[in-house]
């Protein structure tokens, strides 16, 4: 895969106080600052309507920022239309031109980039080979499967050697099995060629799998930026904790803070963890389902409400005075029966404190 002549001109992308207002008062993106390093894959993640696609389209130049500055490489592109930016995009619907063959589709951008016909053709063939579609050049897009169309769209964007490559929910029209494959392909092409990629998705698992950096967005603003690990292990608030992976959010009380360690109390059960600069008082504990321990000597009294066998593990729903939590256990040989009263505790690593909310 590496012996191709597609080079990378990867450049960083920077947003400085960028806002986008549709009409008079619909704020789609509200004053965001963002920096994507050259050669990295950054994901814009969030629920629908959070402004992630608008942000992507502003990088592409398909939407113009209402205020702020957008810089790609060392060029201020805020006022440049899509045509004049060195950016290409893979659309959610692929947007392959149905009246052109696969090769014509891939050559399309090259012919407007000053290459002569022969050069454009050989570059396009190269791009098709890179995405594993050698020999498909004379087909029409309508004669390809969904996954193949997707790869043509990627090739079409890649061959331009853009400074930034954009993906708008590229996997959403594919079936579940193909998704893993395509997302791995995209990631390996990105890493092999050292491309700067900005990737939009609403699927947190997809984001965790492909990203160097994830930008979680909510209500037109950025909720948190970090590596997949940071976001999963140390979410900044309830929204991020709940959106990235599943998290049980339990009300607790910080009874003592000692340096960076805090002690919390839930129904008499005490647990020690990082304080994250929270003061003594009420707070929220976020615990991943796998970090809940069931059946220890001490802990919070709870009752098994549901027990589900899913093959690799057991899934339990526990209820108690704290409400309801969802837990998974690797022990499938001696499952707990629904109705059993148990004690619930937390693993030493994993649970994080969040502000009360």
């Amino acid at each position, binding site marked *: 895969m590496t012996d191709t002549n597609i080079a990378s001109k990867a450049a960083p992308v920077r947003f400085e106080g960028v806002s986008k207002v549709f009409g008079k008062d619909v704020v789609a993106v509200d004053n965001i600052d963002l920096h994507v390093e050259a050669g990295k894959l950054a994901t814009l993640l969030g629920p629908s309507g959070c402004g992630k696609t608008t942000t992507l*389209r502003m990088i*592409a130049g398909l939407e113009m920022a209402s205020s702020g500055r957008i810089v790609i490489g060392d060029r201020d592109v805020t006022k440049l239309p*899509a*045509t004049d930016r060195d950016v290409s995009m893979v659309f*959610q*619907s692929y947007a392959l031109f149905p009246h052109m063959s696969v090769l014509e589709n891939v050559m399309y*951008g090259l012919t407007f980039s000053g290459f002569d016909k022969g050069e454009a053709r050989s570059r396009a063939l190269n791009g098709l080979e890179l995405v594993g579609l050698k020999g498909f050049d004379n087909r*029409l897009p309508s004669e390809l499967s969904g996954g193949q169309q997707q790869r043509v769209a990627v090739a079409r964007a890649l061959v331009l050697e853009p400074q930034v490559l954009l993906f708008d929910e590229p996997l*959403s029209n594919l079936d579940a099995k193909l998704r893993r494959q395509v997302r791995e392909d995209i990631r390996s092409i990105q890493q092999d060629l050292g491309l700067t990629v900005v990737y939009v998705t609403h699927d947190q698992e997809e984001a965790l799998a492909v990203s160097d950096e994830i930008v979680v967005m909510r209500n037109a603003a950025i909720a948190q930026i970090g590596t997949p690990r940071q976001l999963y292990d140390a979410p900044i608030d309830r929204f991020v904790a709940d959106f990235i992976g599943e998290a049980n959010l339990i009300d607790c009380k910080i009874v003592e803070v000692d340096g960076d360690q805090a002690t919390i109390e839930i129904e008499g059960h005490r647990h020690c963890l990082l304080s994250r600069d929270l003061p003594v008082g009420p707070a929220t504990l976020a615990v991943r389902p796998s970090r809940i321990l069931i059946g220890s000597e001490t802990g919070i009294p709870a009752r098994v409400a549901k027990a589900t066998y899913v093959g690799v593990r057991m899934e339990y729903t526990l209820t108690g005075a704290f409400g309801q939590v969802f837990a998974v256990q690797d022990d499938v040989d001696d499952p707990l029966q629904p109705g059993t009263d148990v004690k619930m505790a937390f693993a030493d690593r994993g649970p994080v404190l969040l502000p009360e909310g």
Partner: protein
Amino acid sequence: MIFWIIIGWVGYCLLPWYMVEGGLWSFEWLFSGYPFDEDFAPALFLTAQGEKLWLVPLLIPLALPLLVLGKPKSDPIYAKILILAGALGFGWLIAQGFGIGIRGFNFDWLKALFGEPKIRQFGMGYGAMLCASAFLFLLTQGIAARGAVNGDVFVVSAIGGVITIVTAFVFFPIANMLFSAFVTEKGAYSVFVFASKFFDDRLWGLGCFWGAKCGAAWNSLFLAILVGLITTVLGLCFALVVTRSGFRFKRGMRALTVLPIITPPFVIGLALILLFGLSGSVTVFFADLFGVQPTRWLYGMPGVLIAQTLAFTPIAFLVLIGVVEGVSPSMEEAAQTLRANRWQTFRTVSLPLMRPGLANAFLLGFIESMADFGNPLVLGGNFDVLSTEIFFAIVGAQYDQGRAAVLAMVLLFFTLSAFYAQRAWLGKKSYTTVSGKGDAGVHPLMPNGLAIPVVAIATIWALFTAVVYGMIIYGSVVELWGVNNTLTFKHYVTAFSVRFEEEGIRWTGAAWDSFWTTISIAAIAAPLTAAVGLVTAYLLTRQNFAGKNAFEFGTMLSFAIPGTVIGVSYILAFNVPPIEITGTGVILVVSFIFRNMPVGVRAGIASMSQLDRSLDESSLTLGANSWQTFRRVILPLLKPAILAALVYSFVRAMTAISAVIFLVSAEYDMATSYIIGRVENNDYGLAIAYSTTLIFVMLAAVGLLQFLVGRVQIGRRTQIGAERTT
């Protein structure tokens, strides 16, 4: 099944077998000699009295189904008997219908076989129609029982019904007409007759290249190609302005799309006469200004061309606006991110993707121009085109059916070739967006170099159209155009005066007769058109059966057949038994149904393909049969489509002229043919006043539709709702 057996017996034993005088709605026959009088008697009484003995064999297929009454459907005998009974009965009915006409046997070999008995019969009446439908549906039930289309009785019956009526009212008259082109004056068949009429100089002459007259065929062809091209370009300009520009008066331009629907076809010609005719305002103005003699330049090719362009540009606009909006925005955005500038994007992506729309718009303009009858009649002067030539061949002093048929064949050949040319040009390439999902985004604006001329052209043409329509209204209240320009309501009074008397309102105006006839015929035709159209659409979108493509082609065919051709073929075919309806209101209704059916079919297909098939399937699995599903699930969801089909066919029936002019009679005169009659008498004031009234009546009908459709809300996902409003 029992229902159709009863219907069959009722038709045979109780109702008059033959067409009764006074039309379908008169029940006089009940009191004058029924059931024994020969004219009104049911078949049973006829045969019992020893008359029309060839109806006796029908008793066999009528009796046959009684044998299987108690049998279960799965019994192979059941299906066989029903098919046998249906086929026998239907076949015999048709055979005797065509075999024996008013003057006895229709074919010489029958005469030879049976001698020349004194037998004759008239057109089919109630009894015969009921019997025919009973046999038809017994046949389809038998076919369904054998397992065709999953043994679905409703679907098989619907297919059978549609095929039968389309054959009877589209294929039969056309075929009949084609044959009559070969008939000599003595009634024999001859190829030479056809050839002599076909190679007539009036048809194919090329005199116009050296100063003489060209043949009507060439005239029509040149005119249609020009009109097709110009309307397509203008329509594209309008569509681009409305969807791809920041132009301020876009909404006003959109209103243009309503115009062709509500305008009787020749009204534009009239307005052009008021403007550019010998005493038209513009002509007189320039004549005074430059001191030149006013000329009759308008009458002929230029006038017809301008009138047709004005009339059909909105149709092209209507077609193209959907297509231009239908180009997926992400295609154009993709092109932009691939470094194509706006002009390159437009040229390499937008325009090619609009190709099917452009082809369609051209085809429509071409066919409409070919079929247009009103404008050439009003403005043609010495410029002969096929549609008017056909008319004069039938109604003129020459009365030459064969010539009319030949002309109609040439016309039909042109329109059908255009159909094929369109298919060929589009080729196998795909123009539809590959995936319909995730098409957010907006259409880019046109590049400036394109936008300025396009907006200019569209604005000028829109203003011209507005002036022309203004002229229509103004012209209707002027005493005598160009001679006495005082304002008056005289024409309206002549046409639509009413007197209130003791016994009620008396409609004394000259136009009332044709006005009410038009309204009632249109009102009868509209629901029937909608019904036939929707059932056909249901079959085409929801069912799979052998020969579906041919079925679709057949139902759309009547759209490609110009109205004049339909008109000629109807009077030729339905002047004689077994279907003898010339001169009645029925023939008008029937012609409207089959002229406008494609509209209903298209409307139905468009909205049915938006309804998820799983709706039907869930209804079927819940125990409903397909008729109940159609009735309870599909129909309620199709209310907007039904309303649209209803109003559209109503309005089209009111504005139609080309087919109607052949089919009207003294008793059933339609508004449009009445107006044409006024125009031929140079009574422009009345004609324009009447046209104006029609425009407003139809505007009201369309407005009512919009109001009703606006209120019919169907719970659907909002995304689809959004798509439908754009």
